[in-house]
């Protein structure tokens, strides 16, 4: 019987896949700092994503105060 799985997030593998997608090349020694930043972004997104928003909350990319 199949079971649902959610793989652990692997930031190193994700970074490499994303670089390929975006046609970006990096020096190998840049990767640890980029991965560290990716983890910070992941934590920020988890914080924001943990807040329930109504469907009517429209994005405000260009904002008029």
């Amino acid at each position, binding site marked *: 019987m199949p079971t649902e799985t959610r793989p652990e997030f692997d930031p190193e593998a994700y970074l490499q896949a994303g670089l390929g997608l975006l046609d970006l090349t990096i020096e190998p020694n840049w990767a640890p700092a980029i991965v560290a930043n990716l983890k910070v972004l992941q934590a920020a997104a988890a914080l924001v994503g943990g807040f329930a928003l109504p469907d009517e909350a429209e994005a405000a990319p260009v904002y008029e*105060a």
Partner: protein
Amino acid sequence: MTDFGTASAAEIASAVSAGRVGAHAVTSTVLERIARLDGRVNSFTDVVSERALARADALDAARARGEALGPLAGVPFAVKNLFDVAGLPTRAGSKINRERAPAERDATLIARLEAADAILVGALNMGEYAYDFTGENLHDGPTRNPHDLGHMSGGSSGGSGGAIAAGLVPLVLGSDTNGSIRVPSALCGCFGLKPTYGRLSRGGTFPFVGSLDHLGPMARSVEDLALAFDAMQGPDPADPVVADRGIEPTAPTVDSGIGGLRVAVAGGYFARSGDPEAFEAVRTLASALGCERTVDIPEAARARASAYLITAAEGATLHLDRLRERGGDFDPAVRDRLIAGAVMPAPFVERAQRFRRWYRAAVLDLFREVDVILAPATPCRAPRLGQKTFVLDGVELPVRANLGIFTQPISFIGLPVVAVPVWPDDGLPLGVQIIAAPWREEVALRVARHLEREGLVRAPVAKLD
């Protein structure tokens, strides 16, 4: 006798208009002071002496013909080097951009200040592509804090803060995406105005995060902020975001006091994760304003996280081609964050933009009950140059990303803020944000001016001679 090398913009304009001093004499004095002192501070990347003196001579000739001069007559000013200055490549703190062709014309705000008869004297150091709170630039060197040269100026408008605190010019322009006017204002002990999002044109400036970028003035007096702000307002087809509003002058009412204004202190998020003296500075000003009320700006941590995500994604998108072709020419501290932002999933960013809508409505509700909210500008005084981490509430955190923890949730929804400098002792200053409702810069400036008149906030020239 007035020292026009360190005088305020208002003093200079008054003296030049009345003929008590010539614009040429003021400009020469300022250029000499920059040449003599800036080697220690490193705030200027370009000085346009010939242009400035020619402009000063033209002003002196106009006055000799009996023409009335503008409200900033003869006032020397400088701009963060992401503003286009005709004849200079707009480097935006980067190595890459300095290979660009020289700008053909000045940025809108430079043109407006010069239309008020101010005189541009140069361009100022900044953190690379404005993705910075430290004022440290890998390519041009750090701007050092004029009040203690071993400490950071703050950034990314670090040269702007350094030039004001060193008394090199009375007026500068900076940019503020997440705190880049307010952080250096706090660390260098200056006054800074981050206006409402969409108030001042960004035409002719190098962008960072279009949905968060603001421009504004920094100075050593509140009156000078108001004079400069008034001269720069108005619509501009060169900026798709700038509001179609008429000029709403603030200088005429800046001295009208705080009668009737409802003031509150931001609690919760804004009362933790900082040195106790940062919160004491807020309490001192609140007490002087007769404020006993505390309000909770809801979900400020999520607001900051959202601003962080949007910044990384929009900044990365702006620079994607440069990251592909010239990644090795970036400051690694900037590049690594941009690449992380580039590969981030789109829903992280869209969710942050949707949260922004909710947060805006929630915060605007607060302004039904109060006119002004006070909050710290930074969690601490200026860190030492090169310092990578600091401890906030017992947690060690990176300096570069966390100096703006109290500024990011405010600029996230474009609220106008005046940052005012507080001096707890003989050491370095701290800053307090005076936050108003959208389009109410006038209210924040009045409160700042009241505190300045009471002697609680001030922006002295550093002793460098």
